[in-house]
């Protein structure tokens, strides 16, 4: 039996996720959409914290909420008429979008619901400490991620170069 506080916090987080997501894709003001995204990301971070992945929650707030959303906002400001209303959607396009979203949801939900392990009781939470995380990030053994770490650095470098190329005037 969960504690009441846990349930309440869960309800709040879940509602925040759902509502912010919906608003983020339905609002016609682009800056508001960015803001709702930010809240949705915060709510996600809250889930991480709630599930005892504190490091991850931190990263989520720092990189995602802090970095990406800021990037998006900059982009919005660089492109025309920030905050303007976008055009009203054609109903056909909305129907198609709705169909796609619902289909994706239905397929996913059906797959998840039919898997009984997911209904099991929540296990004991244990927060991985920084030592373990650090070792795993730079180790070569099973469950350790030195190679992806190095690889992602190459990826980031490539994206930097790509970004530079794209952004350069000439």
């Amino acid at each position: 039996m969960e504690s009441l506080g846990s349930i309440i916090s869960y309800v709040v987080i879940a509602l925040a996720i759902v509502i912010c997501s919906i608003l983020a894709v339905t609002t016609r003001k682009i800056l508001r959409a960015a803001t709702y995204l930010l809240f949705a990301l915060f709510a996600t971070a809250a889930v991480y914290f709630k599930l005892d992945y504190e490091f991850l929650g931190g990263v989520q707030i720092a990189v995602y909420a802090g970095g990406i959303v800021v990037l998006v906002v900059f982009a919005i400001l660089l492109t025309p008429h920030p905050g303007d209303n976008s055009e009203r959607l054609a109903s056909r396009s909305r129907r198609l979008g709705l169909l796609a979203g619902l289909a994706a949801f239905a397929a996913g939900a059906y797959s998840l619901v039919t898997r009984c392990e997911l209904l099991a009781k929540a296990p004991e939470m244990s927060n991985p400490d920084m030592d373990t995380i650090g070792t795993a990030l730079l180790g070569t053994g099973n469950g350790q991620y030195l190679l992806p770490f190095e690889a992602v650095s190459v990826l980031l470098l490539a994206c930097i170069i790509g970004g530079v190329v794209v952004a350069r005037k000439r």
Partner: protein
Amino acid sequence: MELNALYYLIPSLIMFACGVYGFITRRNMIAMLISLELMLNSVDMNFVVFNRFLFPNQMEGMFFTLFAIAIAAAETALAIAIVVNVYRANNDIDVRDICKMKF
């Protein structure tokens, strides 16, 4: 009431579905990127939830999420660069106008 994995997964899926909906309906390319972030974020959450509820003894899901955040950042950065570039060239960020090449 027991908070099992589904309680977390379903909101995550809703987030994903919203992302899909937004990606398909929004005409502003930046709004599309926002939708994309929702989708990626939902994926991250899935990993974390699976890791926590089903395989609590290891950290694969968590690390995947960690790297996925990095990848998402890279993706977004590059995508935004391109969007801005297209805007500069075209003075328009409505994705429906970018369809000269077809059939």
